């Protein structure tokens, strides 16, 4: 949910700061954009399907 602090119906006017630098695992996973999030989801889906196919064929 709610990555932000306001209900969906209310436009927030937050004080903003610079985004902290990416660290750890998230440095390599582009979740900061909707497109990156969807691509990661599709890539994970493909990997899981391939692994399940291998597992079920074994």
């Amino acid at each position: 949910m709610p990555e932000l602090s306001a209900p969906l119906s209310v436009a927030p006017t937050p004080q903003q700061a610079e985004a902290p630098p990416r660290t750890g695992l998230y440095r390599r996973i582009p979740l900061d954009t909707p497109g990156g999030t969807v691509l990661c989801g599709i890539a994970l889906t493909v990997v899981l399907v391939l692994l399940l196919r291998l597992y079920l064929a074994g």
Partner: protein
Amino acid sequence: MSWELLGLLLRWIHIGGGIIWMGHNYVNVVLHPGYEAFWAPPPGADDPERQGREKREHAIFRHASLVTWITGLLMLWEKGWLADALLLHGYLAVIGTATWIGTAMMLNVWLVLWPHQKRVLGFVPASPEMRLRCSRITFLSSRTNTMLSIPLLFLMAASQHGAVLFV
């Protein structure tokens, strides 16, 4: 009540809960595509009416995740598939994998997102530094669930309609 009717009701509630739960995530991805750092309390955070609305909204979101998860497990139990799915036995490994992903997502909501988001929302007092850190964790937690929902939905559909992929 027949078992078939119980299964149908569980599925109905499961889908409804999932729409309410993940609908929040998808709407937020559209409304706020990128990370927005917060260190100050949201405007109007001291307005009890507004806080009440925010608490209700978040409670509906959180409990929808729980309802979705529990009805999912009950559906598997009602069919006698629960243990085999969780242990990834045979073709039930497909819905079993989806179940484990859903479990991780539900735990992510309750154990990672909620403890941090209540500081961002101003339900719990927090220093500016802590609110900034919590807003980043909340963002990543939410995005992680959005990402995980993609394979979860695929595997859920594939468990009923994806034999061509796995057999």
